[in-house]
């Protein structure tokens, strides 16, 4: 399980009232989610544990280097109904016509889209149970971080840094962590790592 607290370093992401910055808050969400997932028996890697800012590709590489990983990038928006959370997956990718047995880095997400959708649906259902006003179904958006990730991958965006008090966001932390942990637990039995077709018709398991 690779958890990605977005932004970091000089990139603070969305900035709101009370000096709230997305990069700091999202690290708190990711750390709590890591603990909840480890309690369920998952092995968890964070793409950053401090105030650094790995590149999009470096973050994807953390997941792409693991076989059978799941990737979740976590964000806090500057807009949206406060106290809600949304899950995004990449939109449909066009069919690949030239299969060479290698997945192009810039389209690494394509073979995993249906798994990403399944994971996204499960996590969104859990989030909408806990956070009133959250959508019941996942959304699609071409999120840059997801495109290069060769694993079931979703983005979770929480609203928002524009809360009146920081404590409103803090109160959401356990619910978000629990929703992700529950969604992943439900997803685990159905996760079969896709075989990669190679020239000549055989598949690489």
């Amino acid at each position, binding site marked *: 399980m690779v958890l990605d607290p977005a932004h970091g370093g000089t990139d603070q992401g969305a900035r709101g009232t009370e000096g709230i910055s997305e990069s700091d808050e999202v690290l708190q969400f990711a750390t709590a989610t890591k603990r909840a997932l480890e309690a369920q028996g998952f092995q968890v890697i964070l793409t950053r544990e401090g105030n650094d800012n790995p590149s999009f590709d470096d973050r994807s590489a953390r997941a792409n280097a693991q076989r059978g990983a799941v990737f979740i990038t976590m*964000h806090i928006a*500057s807009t949206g109904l406060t106290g809600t959370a*949304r899950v995004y997956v990449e939109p449909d990718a066009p*069919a690949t016509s030239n299969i060479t047995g290698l997945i192009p*880095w*810039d389209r690494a997400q394509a073979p995993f889209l249906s798994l990403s959708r399944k994971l996204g649906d499960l996590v969104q259902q859990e989030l909408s149970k806990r956070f009133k006003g959250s959508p019941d179904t996942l959304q699609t*958006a*071409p999120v840059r971080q997801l495109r290069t990730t060769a694993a079931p991958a979703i983005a979770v965006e929480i609203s*928002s840094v524009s809360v009146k008090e920081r404590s409103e966001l803090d109160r959401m932390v356990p619910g978000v962590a629990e929703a992700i942990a529950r969604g992943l637990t439900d997803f685990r039995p159905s996760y079969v790592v896709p075989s990669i077709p190679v020239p000549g018709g055989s598949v690489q398991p």
Partner: protein
Amino acid sequence: MNPKWTIWLGGVLLAAVIAAALYFPALRRQVDKAKELTEKTAEQARRELLPVAPVSTGDPMVKVKMFWGSRGQEGELMPVVVELPLSREPVLRARQVLNTLLAGPVDAESRTLPPDAALLAFYILPDGTGVADFSDEIRTSIPSGIQSEQLAVESIVRTLEANVPQVLRLKILIHGQEADTLAGHVDLTQLFRVNAKDAAGTQLDNPSPPGSKLPAPIRKAVDTVRRATKR
């Protein structure tokens, strides 16, 4: 010191403090006003440098569908019909509708694009790819987040789809350059499908990652925009 002089000095100091206290808010208002005027002037100057919005009085008034944010449904777009003098020429038409989109709806809360962003250039390549080049403000002034960035891109795409059928797909540039993302989230390295029916089956599975070689028509458009902005 003579007590009489002390009283005088104290009185003068007190009067100075009272005068300063009365004058300070007025001074602050003046400074704020001056700052606002400077900002407006800079913005005005920048807009004056941009090509004049191609609206001709000879263009027929046409009902166009603009896509701005929906007030009722958060994160959704809503079509709004407005009447505009609109050119029949696709490039001019695209610039007219995008400038209207940037100018924003009557209700400022339904805005999808920052008010200070500007369209620097718009081209349509022979294969139907529209290239829209926006000023830096589209990246620096937009509220950061997946939802807000997605709404911004969707509003551009759907407004073009509704009004300029010749644009089959769209490439968004920022200040003449290909950008990795709009403001940290939504991927701008790809082409956005505009007229889905017309674009079916076309090669869209070749997004160009940063640093890679751009497809030739896009590279040509980027170079044209760069040359234009250098002048």
